[in-house]
């Protein structure tokens, strides 16, 4: 069980999908029950991971490793290798949680072709989990690409009026980015063969040889930058960073509610995860190249401001939330390319926060849409009079999304800005307006939709949240408060992998992060505060001893 926990988590949704194939499509309620039970099971099997991972959170390297390099296709050098560190652990927990939430939220929203819907959704779930677990680039690429198909069908079949356009645009855009990444990784693979005489896609092997290209006279720094750009394109489209974001509003607006939740909550994180897992360790010298880094920061800041400004003037609620994602993900990439422990761990935490709060925002929009079949802001007003519980939850999630202290968004954004400030105060200064604008567009939206008297007679008889809908929000609200009030466990989980990556990229600037030198809370505290670290270290050893 302990050894195969990742495989179990990975294939539970797929097994459920296979089971659903044999259920007759007329018995819709049976299908819904089975799908929900499978999704809940998918969440429950990932729960044991929490204590197990917690116990070894400071240990270096990947945990729960499964499989061996090259065991899947030895002739190519591809292996079925799974393993997680703190970053992928949090993203996996987010995926299983949001997977369950969005399947639960689809109960009444999806009325036709129910069976297919749940099958594709569960397949999608497996694909996403695989992306976060794979430690073999070939396996990663398989999941990365295969996952596009169910998402394409979810948008294309159950989407809104322009679903065909949005679905194909989503598919083509993402594929466009990833094919160049395939070429780049084929080069890394070939280069690894040159250096070691072995063909392998094992990520840990590529970690060792890929950084050498930058200094290899046969290829040189320009070539390494081109390789980085091939990866960048794939991930930047997925995130999406400005100016590669144009697929996102279409896909988000047209997708069914649950599809939007997963799209915003998990799919976008694959891009940022890719940056952290691949771009930084593969090309440490490239990302520290002033020009490259400058562009990355510039695009992130443009994304933050641009996304927020465009959100401000949307008439459609879902589109507003979609553009707000561009802005929030700008913070995440800003934190990544700040390239210090605070920025990076803030970025990963913010990815989780964005999954929670934006996922909830899409659910919120979906609930109104299900009742009224319109998302025009001008159609609403005074909703808090008729749906008070709904209005309260909405307020909590809006505050979380705009980064109010005591809620999760604040912790992530604050840490990112702190990390950015440590690198260059001007970068932070440019990013801060994004926070203010977020407050503006969200509060203005809230005011227009919820406050005042009910002006539109169609809104007078709207019923408040059903118990099922309340249940979908409960875990999200709890996690939002948890991260907002007590984020320490999250930072502890992130500390080891983040320090590892920062040390790989800029070991010279952060010699204190050398593996083996443990320190608690390095994420929030500058790296040179060594005395405190030693004290905590002893405390930590004692606590380990008592176990």
């Amino acid at each position: 069980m302990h050894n195969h926990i990742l495989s179990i988590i990975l294939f539970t949704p797929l097994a459920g999908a296979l089971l659903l194939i044999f259920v007759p499509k007329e018995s819709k309620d049976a299908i819904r029950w089975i799908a929900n039970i499978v999704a809940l099971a998918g969440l429950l099997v990932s729960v044991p991971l929490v204590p197990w991972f917690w116990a070894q959170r400071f240990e270096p390297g990947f945990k729960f490793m499964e499989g061996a390099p090259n065991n899947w296709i030895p002739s190519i050098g591809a292996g079925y290798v799974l393993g997680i560190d703190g970053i992928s652990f949090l993203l996996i927990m987010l995926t299983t949680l949001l997977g369950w939430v969005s399947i639960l939220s689809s109960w009444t929203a999806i009325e036709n072709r129910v069976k297919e819907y749940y099958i594709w959704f569960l397949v999608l779930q497996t694909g996403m989990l695989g992306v976060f677990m794979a430690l073999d680039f070939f396996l990663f690429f398989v999941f990365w690409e295969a996952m596009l198909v169910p998402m394409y069908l979810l948008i294309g079949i159950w989407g809104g009026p322009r679903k065909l356009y949005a679905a194909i645009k989503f598919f083509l855009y993402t594929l466009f980015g990833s094919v160049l990444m395939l070429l780049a990784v084929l080069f890394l693979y070939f280069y690894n063969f040159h250096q070691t005489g072995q063909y392998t896609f094992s990520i840990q092997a590529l970690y060792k040889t890929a950084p050498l290209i930058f200094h290899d006279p046969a290829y040189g720094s320009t070539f390494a930058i081109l390789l980085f750009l091939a990866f960048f394109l794939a991930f930047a489209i997925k995130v999406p960073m400005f100016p590669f974001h144009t697929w996102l509003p279409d896909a988000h607006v047209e997708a069914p509610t649950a599809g939007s939740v997963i799209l915003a909550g998990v799919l976008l994180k694959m891009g940022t995860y890719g940056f952290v897992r691949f771009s930084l360790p593969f090309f440490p010298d490239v990302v520290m190249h002033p020009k490259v880094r400058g562009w990355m920061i510039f695009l992130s800041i443009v994304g933050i401001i641009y996304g927020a400004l465009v959100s401000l003037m949307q008439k459609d609620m879902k589109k507003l939330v979609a553009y707000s994602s561009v802005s929030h993900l700008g913070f995440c990439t800003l934190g990544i390319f700040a390239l210090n422990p605070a920025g990076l761990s803030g970025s990963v935490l913010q990815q989780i926060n964005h999954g929670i709060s934006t996922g909830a925002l899409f659910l919120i929009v979906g609930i109104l849409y299900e009742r009224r079949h319109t998302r025009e802001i001008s159609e609403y007003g005074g909703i808090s009079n008729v749906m008070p519980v709904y209005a309260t939850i909405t307020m909590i999630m809006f505050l979380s999304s705009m980064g109010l202290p005591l809620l999760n968004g604040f912790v992530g954004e604050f840490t990112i800005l702190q990390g950015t400030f440590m690198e260059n105060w001007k970068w932070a200064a440019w990013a801060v307006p994004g926070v203010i604008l977020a407050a503006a567009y969200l509060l203005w939206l809230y005011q227009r939709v919820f406050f005042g008297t009910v002006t539109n007679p169609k809104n007078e008889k709207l019923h408040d949240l059903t118990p099922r809908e309340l249940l979908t929000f409960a875990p999200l609200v709890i996690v939002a408060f948890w991260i907002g009030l007590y984020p320490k466990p999250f930072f502890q989980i992130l500390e080891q992998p983040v320090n590892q990556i920062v040390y790989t990229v800029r070991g010279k600037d952060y010699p204190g992060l050398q593996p083996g030198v443990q320190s608690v809370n390095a994420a929030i505290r500058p790296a040179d505060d060594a005395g405190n670290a030693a004290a905590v270290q002893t405390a930590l050893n004692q606590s380990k001893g008592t176990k």
Partner: protein
Amino acid sequence: MSGNLAQNFGRVDYLMALPVILLTLFALGILLLDLMLPAQWKRVNAFTALGGILFSASGIVKIQLALNAAGLPGESAFLNSIVVDRFTIYFWYLFLAGAAISILMSMRYLEIEHENHGEFYSLLLFSVVGMMCMAAGFDVVLIFIGLELMAISTYVLVGFLRTDRRSNEAALKYLLLGAFSSGIFAYGLSLFYGLTGSTSLLGIRSGLVRLAASHPDHVDPVAVIALLTVATGLFFKIAAIPFHQWLPDAYEGAPTSVTGFMSVAVKAAAWAMLLRIFIWGLYPLRTVYVPLLIFVSILTMTGANLAALTQSNLKRLLAYSSIAHVGYMLLGLVALASVTYPAPAFFDGFKGILLYLLVYTFMNLGAFGVIASLRQRNVIGDEMDDIAGLYFRAPTEAVLMLIFLLSLAGIPPLAGFYGKYFIFLSLIESGHYVLASLAVLYAVFGLYYYMRIANQMFMREALDKTLLPISAGMRLALGVTAFATVYIGIFPEQFIRIVNWSLGIAQTASVATLVR
């Protein structure tokens, strides 16, 4: 005189030709049998043909056993005019598999068309006989004879729907252009004969080496002209742009099951011939033909992918897509010919082409099979509208079609990905970065037009809401092709090993059989 010659051939010669001989006998047998069969028994012909394929395959097994027992990687026969090495055996199996699946798909289709004649299966087998000669031939005369046997049988098969104008038009076009290209091809071969004094691929090769040694500073202009004409003929046969015009018309007009057969087996045979000639025979001229191949492959990928975007006829769309696939395979040849022989790119490019042909056989036949099953009593069934809402009429077929399309687009983990994988890898290994980037970008185009079909199947209402009847033979054929597409995708290891084996890489370190 001829009597003396025949005495020179021993058991080995006939053993090496056994699969070809068996298949010829069955093809002739069908013609005889057909005369005696009453109209309602015409299906027997199909089963006879399948039996012939089984017998021929067992002949190949017999050869393999004999070769293994003798510890030989291959054996030549009939005064070196054929060589049965692993490369040959690989292609022989491929042809037989393609033919068998096509026969399964044809049975009900021909009944609907009221053209259920024994000649169909006989011609199909004759065409496979020609292909086997093309793959095994080591003498350009035999290769040419095999080519003509295959081509003439296929011309007739394309025009098999006698009452259908499109079918007749396609057959005539195909015949004229095919004959024209064969003429050019033969002309080039005759130039090589004049230049080197040999019709054997080995003789041509050593003649070219001698020629290059005698004046090392430039390539003989006659050799260049000969190469250009031979290459033109070959490009016609594999339908590379700008020599592709016959293909969309022929594919559209031919009976759909024949289109499927042409797109996999006939194409594979043309590739076997092309590889034999370019790698075994004309390898010394590779500095001349690599730029030519680069030019043609770019043209092919560009033209075919752009043309496919706007097609509204399913068969034409898949026709252009099959031209685009030829463009990718040509890139494999570019990579393998632009490095010196034992470099990794040589083997990966070669593997890419062979694996591509293998997976293409299954996925493309599957796609054509689904289109063939759309043919009803009163529906031709090859327009976009005919496949609209297929999901509601035949859900299983729609999902299988989606698998075939995704595989054709090269989405992992489906079989089609691995062909592209090796070709891209070989391009990277041989340093063709720009070419590789271009190729992957065209793969994105490819996805667009394949997904247009998927859009129709899943996201539109059906125009004709009746359930689609699927015959047992078709079910079997679709099942086999879909299973292969998915299975090769998830567990490709054994298939890569088979390809390695056919190149003589896996078991023996020596690759003497490859370039001899």
